[in-house]
Structure formats: structure tokens, C-alpha cells
């Protein structure tokens, strides 16, 4: 649970935006309202309010010529008499640290490192940080360990998929479908590789399913690059395809209930459950929905014997059958 942001934080956020917005507009003369709003992720109303604030600020005696000019002219944002704010303030040590830590973690990925651009950019960043800030950032970097890599098999496949995505080449992959426990071979247009909730994913167009699909990179068994080029859909928006999956697995479908013992209550944190309730015996009853009963059966077996399938009867029966068949192997 993150603490609520107080009014001071929003005032600080607004001030930071203003100090960055003025030099940006000065550097991009003729920028339109839409362009500024998009860059600063703000609404038109907020921008107008910001310009109105700038219009009444400046230096003493706050007469004409001492105050900033800030208004919308036609559809263009105009800011003038703002020489004090011609440059944005320096990065705070926190901003510098975040950029540096993320940059180092990303540059440990082979597909990023081989480009060389990030290493050069970080060196340029280090060159302009004040000495005390740079020391602090370096010291912190020695105390923060970020590993984006995953295991070696995953890294190999992710590197190949990211290269194919960057060069716009179709791939053929062997993929292990976690929900059904099957291995399939398919051609995919790799749109984007991204990390979310601790896993790397590939989003792209699957020619076997004839639709957009998400693949977990640690379930890719092999990658074969091809020479066939592909195009991303027109107006491809990375943000719209970089969401962790699972929602389609949990949106609607059959509603099931499980009783979870103490040791497996993490399930309630890990999956999007619909409801939970503490039972008199101390267990946690959770309700979740799935389109694939087989997925839930496998989960219950994995948690055996601490998760009890309560309803519906199909789930209980499927678990009973899977348990019998698994136990048969242990009978000898």
C-alpha cells in the first residue's frame, strides 16, 4: 500500500512541471497546445491554468516587462520574457540515480549492450552531473542490485526475439502453453518484448491463432529467425501492448472457489481474485474466474494438499481424476 500523496507533493509536482515546461516551450517555438499537453501528460485546462500562473509571475516590481508572457495564440503556446527559466533545473539526485540505475540494469542485457547507445548516453550523463551528486549516485549504485536478465535460456531467447522485433523480421517459435501443458510451433510477428510482473513477454501477431497474442519468454522452447519482414499495425502504441497478460484468462468464464491454507495464501496476492473470505477453520476462501479449467486443476495439484477445490463440481472431479492418475505413477 503506498501512502497517500499530500497536497505538498502535488504543489511540488506542479512546480517541477512548470520549471521544465517553460524551457521546453522556449526550445520548441510554435509548439501547439496538443503537443505540449502530450509531452507533459496534461489536459488543456491544466495547461491554461499553468500559463495563467506564469502570466502573473516574474521579478519585482512585477510591472509590465517584469512579468512573463504566457498565453495561447491561435493554437500555439506562447511564452516570453522568461529568460530566468531558459534552462530546466538540473536533475535531482533521485532522478539522476533512477536514470543511472535503470540504465545500468538495461545495459546488462545483451540486446541493449550490443547497440552501444545506452552506454554512451550514460557516460554523457555522468559527465554533466555535479561531482557530489555523481559520488552519491555511484555509491548508491553499489548498493542496488537489479537483475533484469532471467535465467540463461530465457536470456538467449529474449535476445533473439528483441533483435527480430527491432529489425522487423518474423520468427518461428516453439512455445509451451502453460494453461494446457502442450508444446506448439507457430510463426509470430514479434511486435515488442517487455517485462511485467517479473516476467519477460513477447507481444505480437500469431499466424497460428490468427490474432494478437502474448507469449511468456521463459516458456519459449526455441526461436528460429526468418528473413520474412513484417510491419507493425498502423499507429502501433507500445503502451497498449505492454500490459501483463492473464486478464483474458480471468475475465469472465467459469467461477471457481478454492479454500487456501496458510502456506498457500500467496495465491490470493498473485492472481486477480474476485472475492475472498476467511472461513471458520482459518482457511481463506477465494473466488476466481477462468476460461480454462485445466489451468486451475494444475494449480491445485501444484499446491497439493493445501488448496481445496470447493466449487463447481467439475473442478473437484477434474482435480480428483488428475490426482488419481498422478498417484498411479507412484504406486510402484
Amino acid at each position, binding site marked *: *500500500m503506498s501512502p497517500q500523496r499530500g497536497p505538498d507533493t502535488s504543489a511540488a509536482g506542479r512546480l517541477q512541471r512548470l520549471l521544465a515546461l517553460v524551457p521546453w516551450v522556449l526550445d520548441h517555438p510554435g509548439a501547439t497546445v496538443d503537443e505540449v499537453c502530450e509531452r507533459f501528460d496534461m489536459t488543456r485546462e491544466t495547461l491554461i491554468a499553468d500559463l495563467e500562473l506564469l502570466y502573473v509571475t516574474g521579478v519585482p516590481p512585477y510591472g509590465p516587462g517584469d512579468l512573463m508572457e504566457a498565453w495561447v495564440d491561435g493554437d500555439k503556446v506562447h511564452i516570453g520574457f522568461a529568460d530566468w527559466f531558459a534552462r530546466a*533545473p538540473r536533475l535531482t539526485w533521485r532522478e539522476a540515480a533512477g536514470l543511472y540505475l535503470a540504465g545500468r540494469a538495461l545495459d546488462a542485457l545483451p540486446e541493449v549492450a550490443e547497440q552501444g547507445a545506452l552506454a554512451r548516453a550514460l557516460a554523457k550523463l555522468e559527465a554533466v552531473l555535479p561531482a557530489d551528486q555523481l559520488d552519491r549516485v555511484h555509491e548508491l549504485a553499489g548498493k542496488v542490485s537489479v537483475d533484469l536478465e*532471467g535465467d540463461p535460456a530465457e536470456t538467449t531467447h529474449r535476445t533473439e526475439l528483441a533483435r527480430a522485433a527491432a529489425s522487423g523480421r518474423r520468427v518461428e517459435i516453439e512455445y509451451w502453453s502453460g494453461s494446457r501443458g502442450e508444446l506448439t510451433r507457430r510463426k509470430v510477428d514479434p511486435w515488442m518484448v517487455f517485462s511485467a510482473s517479473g516476467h519477460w513477454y513477447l507481444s505480437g501477431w500469431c499466424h497460428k491463432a490468427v490474432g494478437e497474442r502474448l507469449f511468456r519468454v521463459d516458456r519459449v522452447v526455441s526461436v528460429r529467425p526468418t528473413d520474412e519482414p513484417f510491419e507493425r499495425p498502423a499507429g502501433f502504441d507500445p503502451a497498449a501492448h505492454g500490459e501483463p497478460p492473464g486478464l483474458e484468462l480471468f475475465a469472465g468464464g467459469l467461477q471457481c472457489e478454492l479454500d487456501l491454507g496458510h502456506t498457500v495464501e500467496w495465491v490470493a496476492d498473485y492472481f486477480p481474485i474476485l472475492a475472498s473470505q476467511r472461513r471458520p477453520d482459518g482457511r481463506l476462501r477465494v473466488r476466481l474466474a477462468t476460461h480454462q479449467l485445466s489451468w486451475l486443476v494444475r494449480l491445485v495439484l501444484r499446491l497439493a494438499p493445501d488448496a481445496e477445490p470447493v466449487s463447481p463440481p467439475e473442478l473437484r472431479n477434474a482435480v480428483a481424476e488428475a490426482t488419481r492418475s498422478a498417484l498411479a505413477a507412484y504406486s510402484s
Partner: protein
Amino acid sequence: MRKVERLVNLIALLLDTRRPLTLDQVAELVPGYEASGESLRRMFERDKEELRSLGVPVERAPIDAWGSEEGYFIDPEAYGMPELDLAPDERAALALAARAWSGATRDPAAVAGLAKLDLDPGAGPDALRANLDGASPLLAGLLEAVSGRKRIVFTYRPPGRTATERRLDPYAMVNRRGTWYVVGHDGDRDALRSFRVSRIESDIRKLRPTSRGADFEVPAGFDPGKLLPTAGEPEGAPMALVRAPRAASRLAELRGAAPTGPPRPDGLVTLRLPVGDRDGLLGWALGNSVEIVEPADLRAEARRRLAGLRAVVEP
């Protein structure tokens, strides 16, 4: 007069002035400092601290050669972000890093940070994206404490147990598999402990908020990279023998499992693999119709768990 206006005017004045201005001069020139005496001083100190936290360096210097009184100013050179002079691919790579740090946040401060370097939030190699969720206020508090070596207090809820207050000397932060941990010396247990940040239920409070300097030293040779298990198993680790369906076996083979021979007629593959985390191996085997053959104690445990489940579903 609103606070943001007061601060904008204050920055403009301190950047514009050719010589340091005393607090009384500032209060006279900037609208909004209606207070006087000690409360004026406190108000100005708070503003100054706020500006510093935003990266605006308010400096102090004597106003005359006798050093009788001090004044304030902002050195435009120290204030302005220098040009990084980035090539287009460098700009895109840095935007990727900035986005990876801030994640999906719409925090105005994160957006402003991008603008300071003129990094287009939408640009960059969109073939790859990472998310470190670094902009959360909780993480900011922890990084601050790790950097300043400040002893902290927070409320922590381990899975399935009640929340308790913990005191920690935070040595380091570790991110594995998309999860942040803070690692340090737990004062109540007198031992090294790691805490999952997502299970912290309170703010991060400094135990001695007003003290200057560090509260503790990090032991020499402490290496955060070696704290949590990473991929790969140590040499000479205990091995297991399992029988797995073809699909599960292919995936395991990528991670160091070695088939002892070709698939049997029924399609099962016999594999040898490191035991590693016992519970992890058991869960993987039970959830994927994999039979554990050796070692005997793990085989017995798998059978015990399955029998336990059968007793539950077939009363």
C-alpha cells in the same frame, strides 16, 4: 498568494539578482511572505528545502566584505541542466531507461524529469520495454535511507501472518524477477534479513529523523548482488531424477535438465536435474504431471502431498 506562485517568483528573483539578498529583502520583494520574525524564517527554510529537493540549489553567501549578514542567491550555472548533446540513438536509449525506471506512472515529477533532458516519453526503441516501478514513494524513501545509511521503521506483513513493526539498518536494495527487496540488519532479530517491498504496509520512517550523518556502517565486503538466489545452480548440488511428459521436459532441458536417454514409448522422458529449491521442484513436478523418481525423500513427499489431496477431494 498561492505557494507555487510564491516559489516561482522566489526562483526568478534569486536567479535574477546580482548579489545575495537577505531574508528581509526576499520577504519584501516576493509576494506571499507575509510572516515575520521566527515564523518568516521557518517559512523560508521550508521553501528553500523544497527547492533543493527539486534540484534548485539555493546558495548562501555574506552580503558584504565584513560578513556581517548572509544573503541568498541561485547561481544560474549551477541551476541549469547542461546540454547532454545526445545522438538520436543515445536519446532513445536514455528514454528507454527513464521509462523503465518510472514505469507506467503519470507522476508530474517523472514527466518533468523526462522533459529536463528533452527525452520524448513516447520515443525510443519500442521493440523492448522494461518496468522497474522505481517512482513509487515507498521506494524513494528506501533509496534515500540506503543512500544516507539511516535506520528506519516500517510495518511489515509476512505472507499469512500478522503485520508487525520492524526496525532495520537498510544496507541495500535488490530487484529480482520484478520484485523489490530491501536487505539489511534487523535490529530486533539481530540478523541479516530481506523484506519484500510490496509487503510493507506503512510509510518508511526514519528512526532519528533530525540527526545528521549516518546511523550505521555497512559491513566491509557486503555484496547485494550475492544476497538472493539468482539463476543457475552451484556445482555439486543434489540431483533429482524425474519422468516428465515431452513438453515439460523440453522446457526443463533449457534450464539444465539432462535427458538420460530417448523418450520412452509412452512419450515420457527421464531427466536428471539439480534439486535446487525443494518446494519449487515439488510444485513444478506436481503441477506438470512429472513423476519424481529420486531422491527417495522427495518421491515420498510428492506421494504424500498427492495422497493428501486425494483425501480432500475424495472423502
